[in-house]
């Protein structure tokens, strides 16, 4: 019988054997890593729609995917497919043959204004207004093609159709922690022995007027629009909000034994995940950071990693006044004095906040950081915040051998989830 590798609690070890990514920096790992290593921003003035009258006019849109007309569903699905294809290529898995569950984090499925207007104008009952008129249009049966935008399982279904995973494809939402949650679900399935592989995906393409405005109304977005590439300033004293962005990333997880048995290259180990819900406020953390602290501690405990073994942190680092302060305070509470020795950078300084996809995007970047021995910088770090004394790898990438990375993801609704990655086990 083949020897099997188990973790500190006797569970099968989950490893990553394939990764794919799309962000405003480009399509694929090569383009994205080149951008990150050079400290280049993918953020730019929005051209998808007029921004007259809006306070925030910068975003990390993905404009090169050949999806027209734009919709959150179609662009999210296209990016997710591109990311999975890249991940399959690296993992040497045949399309339509994936041997495990598919877990995808998807943006809200909702009516966008072009859809509503199309229904309204095409309605056979123009004598009515509002939803009565829209429903009359739907009743004609002429708008069935629009249903995909409103179905929450639609992106997952499209991915299953193409990549052939086993069982029911799962769609999840834990707000801006969603990408990390998909990795947690995949890791758990492998640890339970439920599957030898899992496909974990996050995608978000919600830069449309209402998507932008609703975050703006919650005072979450940066209004430092000029120049666009300087709008996202994680951990800086003059940070004033995040920059909404689009992206997708996919990770192929496998049990270490299964990966070894088929000769796959192990890109990194998913050491552990943890989560803790906050009960303080819909958009803010408990002032004492208890839930974030709880999530980090549970993650380290799950991973069997001591705080001083963390040698790099991929921050949630949104660039909002609230997040960056609370992330620092919580890390300080868990890592103590060791934190001063741990570099931490925020990819969001360059790719913005990809929301639902952020945990997936940052997982890929965390693993590339491990493999390349280069820490991507936090750019736009010109005015340090004295209340956040962190080594943020300011403005320029830095060579460093990294063994163990902590990646944080926090979201509205009290969502906190973290993951620890490390290199291949000896």
């Amino acid at each position: 019988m083949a020897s099997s590798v188990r973790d500190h609690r006797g569970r099968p070890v989950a490893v990553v054997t394939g990764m794919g990514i799309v962000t405003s920096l480009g399509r694929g790992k090569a383009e994205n890593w080149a951008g990150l290593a050079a400290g280049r921003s993918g953020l730019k003035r929005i051209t998808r729609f007029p921004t007259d009258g809006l306070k925030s006019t910068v975003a990390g849109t993905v404009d090169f995917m050949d999806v027209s007309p734009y919709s959150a569903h179609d662009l999210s699905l296209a990016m997710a497919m591109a990311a999975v294809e890249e991940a399959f290529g690296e993992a040497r898995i045949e399309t339509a043959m994936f041997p495990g569950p598919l877990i995808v984090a998807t943006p809200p499925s909702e009516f966008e204004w072009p859809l509503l207007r199309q229904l309204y104008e095409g309605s056979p009952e123009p004598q009515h207004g509002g939803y009565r008129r829209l429903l009359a249009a739907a009743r004609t049966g002429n708008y069935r093609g629009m249903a995909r935008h409103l179905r929450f399982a639609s992106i997952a279904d499209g991915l299953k159709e193409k990549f052939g995973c086993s069982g029911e494809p799962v769609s999840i939402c834990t707000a801006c922690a969603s990408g990390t949650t998909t990795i947690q679900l995949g890791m758990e399935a492998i640890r339970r022995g439920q599957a030898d592989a899992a496909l974990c995906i996050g995608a978000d393409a919600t830069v449309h007027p209402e998507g932008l405005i609703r975050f703006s109304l919650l005072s979450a977005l940066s209004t430092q629009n000029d120049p666009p590439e300087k709008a996202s300033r994680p951990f800086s004293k003059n940070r004033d909000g995040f920059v909404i962005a689009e992206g997708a990333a996919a990770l192929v997880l496998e049990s270490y034994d299964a990966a070894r048995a088929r000769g796959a290259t192990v890109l990194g180990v998913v050491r552990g995940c943890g989560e803790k819900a906050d009960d303080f406020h819909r958009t803010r953390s408990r002032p004492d950071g208890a839930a974030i602290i709880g999530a980090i501690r549970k993650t380290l405990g799950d991973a069997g990693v001591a705080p001083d073994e963390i040698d790099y942190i991929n921050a949630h680092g949104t660039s909002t006044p609230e997040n960056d302060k609370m992330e620092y305070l919580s890390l300080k509470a868990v890592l103590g004095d060791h934190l001063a020795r741990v570099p931490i950078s925020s990819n969001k300084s360059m790719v913005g906040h990809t929301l639902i996809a952020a945990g997936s995007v940052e997982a890929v970047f965390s693993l590339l950081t491990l493999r390349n021995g280069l820490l991507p910088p936090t750019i736009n770090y010109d005015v340090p915040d004295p209340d956040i004394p962190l080594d943020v790898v300011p403005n320029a990438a830095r060579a460093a051998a990294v063994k163990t990375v902590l990646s944080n993801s926090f979201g509205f609704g009290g969502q906190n989830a973290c993951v620890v990655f490390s290199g291949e086990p000896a």
Partner: protein
Amino acid sequence: MSALPHDVWITGIGLVSSQGEGLDAHWDRLARVPAPRPVVDEERFAPYPVHPLATIDVAREIPKTSDQRQMEQWQRTGVYAAGLALADAGIAGNSELLNRTDVVTAAGNGERDLALDARVLEAIGAQPAPDVYLNRALATGLRPTLYLGQLSNLLAGNISLVHKATGSSRTFKGEEMAGVAAVENAVRRIAGGEGELFLVGGALNAEREDLLLGCELDGALHRGPFRSVWARGEGGGLVPGSIGVFLVLESEVHAALRGAKAYASLRSIASDRAARRAGSTDLGLMRLFDEIAGGLPPGPLAVLSGVSGVEPVTGQERAFLQGLEARGYHPAVRAHGTVLGHALEAHFIAGVALAALAVSRQAYFPPFDVSGVERPLEGAPRQILVTGLGHWRGEGLALVEAAD
């Protein structure tokens, strides 16, 4: 998944629907002979009937008006039902237990500002610069907190906030399969020793034109007058029902240690997603049945069906029941969609709740309609098969069993 290494007990149930609030109210109405009368509103959204939520005093479970104001109706309904479930399981107010209660919800999202949508749609066509008008109209017209009422995971978020259940929080999406996935996730985590105490549920506010519009784009709605799910004719269609339903799922060991009583055991659950192509009839339900209940001896079999009334899947579920008949089972099916309405994400969970209720009362529901599809069942079932077929995608089955 078949036999579980750790038994999963259902130790708390919170249920609100058009039939009323709480288990006693539901049992009193649904176990009554003759068949209970569905509560249907055929006027408000004509031609679409809906099952409206019974009147509830939201303040009982959501005391702060500031909290109530920050939620949309689907969230209030869900948070209310979650509170009932926690109280029912003896967990409400117990901070030690709540701190490690893992919340798993099944949710869509929504509730748009319908009045704002109507105003903008009426005016935008005549604007010289429609896009610029839209920006201004939304930036000045949207309530800042509306988005928090729309986000899928904010049902779970509000449960953590109001009830202090904060072990973790995961939200599954995907219409009916969200409910199957939520229950399956909790069951697998209990079985795998990854958690002991879960609050699992969902909610739907059926009384919304934007929800109806989303369903009707693909012709999924039944148009009045109301008929039972088995009798909706050739095209079929669902009648949405407002429901809030939450279960407390617990490992048997954990429940026993704290002296909690079980309504029932959730014996097994399995799901898949068949490729539904034109003309395909087999959704693989018999394979799922064998996976979770293949060991059951032939004979009478109680089935709580989540059938929606939408075709062709309603017919395919009937074919599956006939297939069971051919194998020596005598399915006594009850479609809770007839009496509660179809609750999408929450629908399968409502089926599990009603199955656990029946098992715990050692009795069964009389037929919910007079179509003849639902046959009487003598005696009290020890096991009840719960079905949850997505109206457009996905299939799930669970087996609920007496816990003694």
